[in-house]
């Protein structure tokens, strides 16, 4: 079981330039979506769509997903599938909570959480790199191990303390929060006017510049840092070469095992950081099941982002946004999103029509019409389904976009020094 079944989807060489996401295209796309969102807010009156609270909640939900995704990115760029991210996040939440609880210092928790994740990564690296175990098998085993072991340790360490239990820790210290002065005072009134676009931009700026946890800032900075390290340094080039063609890398004198180990350890550390964020920034206690599958969604965000940091951040932001909406605005706000999806589909239909694909355009238009009808006939979406809207979104996005994506060529293959498999 050393390789996936890759069902041959005939892959033509992509025509040059078309579909290439240059920074300008990304920015203009983002602006267009934001303007559409502002329009939807005005039409539906769902002010939760873009207010500063939603923006902050989006960040809070996006950071753990983004950290898991970055972890997945590091590992997969070196050729190792890391489905154990979920377990490494669990290790991060527990270790962070343990250290913060016993020292009273949040920074000790941050370091311990990262170390916990790194230990999980080490386990994965030993199994997959040194022993050549199937990557998914090892990852699944780590996920099982992490949950059981952390519950065992919680009973031993947290249960005897006041406020603690088998499934949760006592309250934990928080991280300092930072923000630009005066911004909220200046733009807050503007946001409350609910003007088209102006108030939305104000909400965005207020959300991004006030009351941000230091850890959030660190996490956001890790995205460009990852890009710089992996794409702009010799170290990163070597690491990525291990994920594309380990044989070629080896022939050039790159120590493939070393780079794979480093990548998986960093991957675990990032997942651990995401775990610390969940336990100590997004909430103030460790809880069993706190990760809630975010490790997996992080992987999906990474695939959505085509194994690139920028795309990954966009994916994490998207998932974070749906999460934030269903928490803050509940069913009604997500219900308003139906209109946004319809608008996007109309745009897609126009684009397909211009490209001469009449059938695809008609299908998009029909789905858009259905969505509008659905939106007009209902007031809200069932709460139980709204909770899982990020998962449905993941599935839809993957179904629509996977064929345009390209994974590192040697990902998932177990590789041994000196050829052979």
């Amino acid at each position: 079981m050393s390789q996936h079944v890759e069902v041959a989807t005939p892959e033509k060489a992509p025509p040059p330039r078309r579909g290439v996401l240059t920074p300008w295209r990304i920015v203009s796309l983002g602006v267009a979506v934001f303007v559409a969102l502002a329009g939807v807010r005005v039409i539906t009156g769902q002010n939760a769509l873009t207010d500063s609270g939603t923006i902050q909640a989006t960040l809070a939900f996006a950071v753990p997903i983004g950290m898991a995704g970055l972890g997945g990115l590091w590992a997969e760029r070196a050729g190792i599938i890391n489905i154990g991210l979920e377990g490494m996040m669990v290790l991060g939440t527990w270790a962070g909570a343990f250290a913060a609880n016993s020292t009273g210092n949040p920074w000790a928790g941050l370091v311990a959480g990262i170390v916990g994740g790194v230990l999980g990564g080490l386990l994965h690296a030993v199994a997959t790199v040194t022993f050549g175990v199937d990557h998914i098998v090892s990852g699944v085993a780590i996920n099982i191990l992490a949950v059981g072991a952390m519950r065992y340790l919680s009973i031993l360490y947290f249960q005897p303390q006041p406020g603690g239990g088998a499934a949760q820790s006592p309250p934990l210290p928080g991280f300092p929060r930072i923000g630009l002065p005066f911004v909220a005072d200046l733009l807050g009134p503007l946001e409350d006017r609910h003007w088209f676009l102006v108030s939305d931009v104000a909400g965005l700026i207020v959300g991004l510049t006030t009351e941000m946890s230091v850890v959030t800032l660190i996490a956001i900075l890790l995205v460009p840092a990852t890009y710089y390290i992996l794409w702009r340094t010799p170290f990163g080039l070597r690491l990525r070469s291990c994920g594309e063609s380990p044989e070629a890398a080896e022939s050039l004198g790159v120590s493939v095992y070393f780079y794979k180990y480093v990548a998986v350890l960093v991957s675990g550390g990032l997942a651990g950081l995401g775990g610390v964020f969940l336990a100590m920034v997004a909430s103030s206690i460790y809880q069993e099941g706190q990760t809630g599958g975010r490790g997996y969604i992080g992987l999906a965000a990474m695939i959505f982002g085509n194994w690139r940091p920028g795309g990954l951040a966009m994916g994490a932001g998207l998932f974070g946004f749906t999460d934030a909406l269903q928490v803050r605005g509940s069913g009604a706000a997500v219900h308003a999103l139906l209109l946004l999806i319809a608008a996007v589909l109309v745009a897609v239909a126009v684009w397909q029509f211009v490209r001469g694909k009449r059938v695809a355009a008609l299908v998009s238009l029909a789905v858009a019409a259905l969505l509008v009808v659905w939106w007009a006939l209902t007031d809200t979406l069932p709460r139980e389904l709204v909770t899982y809207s990020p998962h449905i979104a993941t599935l839809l996005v993957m179904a629509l976009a996977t064929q345009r994506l390209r994974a590192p060529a040697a990902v998932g293959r177990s590789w041994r020094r000196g050829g052979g498999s």
Partner: protein
Amino acid sequence: MTKSLPTPAGFAAAAGAGVVLTVLLDMALLAPAALAIGVVAAFAVAVLFVGSSTADADSGIHRAVVAPVALVLAVLVGLFTGLVADLWLIEPVAYAIGALVGGTASAALYRGLATQLALAFAAVAAAGALALGITALVLYVTGVDPLSTFARMTDYGTQPNSLVTVVNTGTTYYLSAVAVAVGFRMNLFNIGVDGQYRLAALLAAAVGGAFVLPPGLHQLVIILVAVAVGGFWAGIAGWLKVTRGVSEVISTIMLNAIATGVTAYLLNTNRLAVEIGTNNIGTRPIAESGWVPGIPGGFMGAGREIFGLTLLAVAVGVGYWWLLNRTRFGFELRATGQSATAAQASGVNVKKMVVVSMVISGMVAGLVGMPQLLGASHYYALDFPVGLGFTGIAIALLGRNHPVGIAAAALFWSFLNQSSQILDIDGIPKEIAVVTQATMVLTIVVVYELVHRWGRRYQQRQVGRELGRERVAAS
């Protein structure tokens, strides 16, 4: 090795020696000890007079690994038979029967145990020992005495009532693991068994509770609904994989979460659910015509009943073996698992194989909830067991996707679960069992990978030597 007797006579001599020695020693020693010594004697007779028929009988590896593994297995077979027979018969007779079976087994095992299989057993034993060692270390470091803990667990876990629970939980685990294994055999990771069985159990329970049908038909309809729902939910992932190229790992994980949402949506008093007791809602209970009666556990001294659908699990296991090894579909499935490109080149429709095996996997997953639903709870409620799909993945890994291996792994897993229940009374977290289980999975995949590599190198050497020998003979 010497082979001075015809094979049947050798078998008879080994078994006879075992029985006679056991009966004699039984007067002086404890019966199990006598049995063990008797089987060892039978094994010695087998070594001397039966000989081994495998190709590498004279090699070092055969002496160092295969023979000891065969000996240990024979003793275990004998002891197990003796213990089971002891439940009905008086001790001297029971253990004599045990010795008879153990002695025959030792001759047969020594004669026919293939090196690869012996290596697999050795790997399992090594991984088990390693996992137990790590568990003991964890217990010791956290201030608990490992030995007395293990003794407590074994003591509680082997009580008759516990054993019935072990079999019942093991049945569910087995079905779940077979569902996973069907996919594994062709490198499809159906992580979505969890969502498939929950959705299937909910809808089957709802249908079963809505109608009253004649017994026989009623159960059949419920089970068919479950199978159809499970197959459909898994089929989505298979379809997405072949048409849209979505990795089944991600899609099944998402489908798990969505299944949780759908069950939560449907399990609402406005929809499929009714009030059941306090603080619990569930589907309308299934009428008695839809129940599957249990097998009374009285024959092993237990007051509880074994799920009747344990027999269904056995049938699924046999069917799985037959499908894989005796049908063209199974051959193509295994071929695709080994190399999708080679299978495609030799005319296998890989896309069809992906969808079909995903659907089969989901159909088996649909059965997972049935023993519990039809044998015990009779409705799907908030407290229906969850997470069985992930346990199934671990058990399929432990059992190496083999129908018998999975059965052993499922029973072992549920034995650990059941026997650890006693620990809460002693103030030891029972989650230590989870630590053992997960460590076992990790160590076993590592050890098995090592043995696999080493076995392949050994085979290559063996072939090389044969070729060399031929060349010498030819020149």
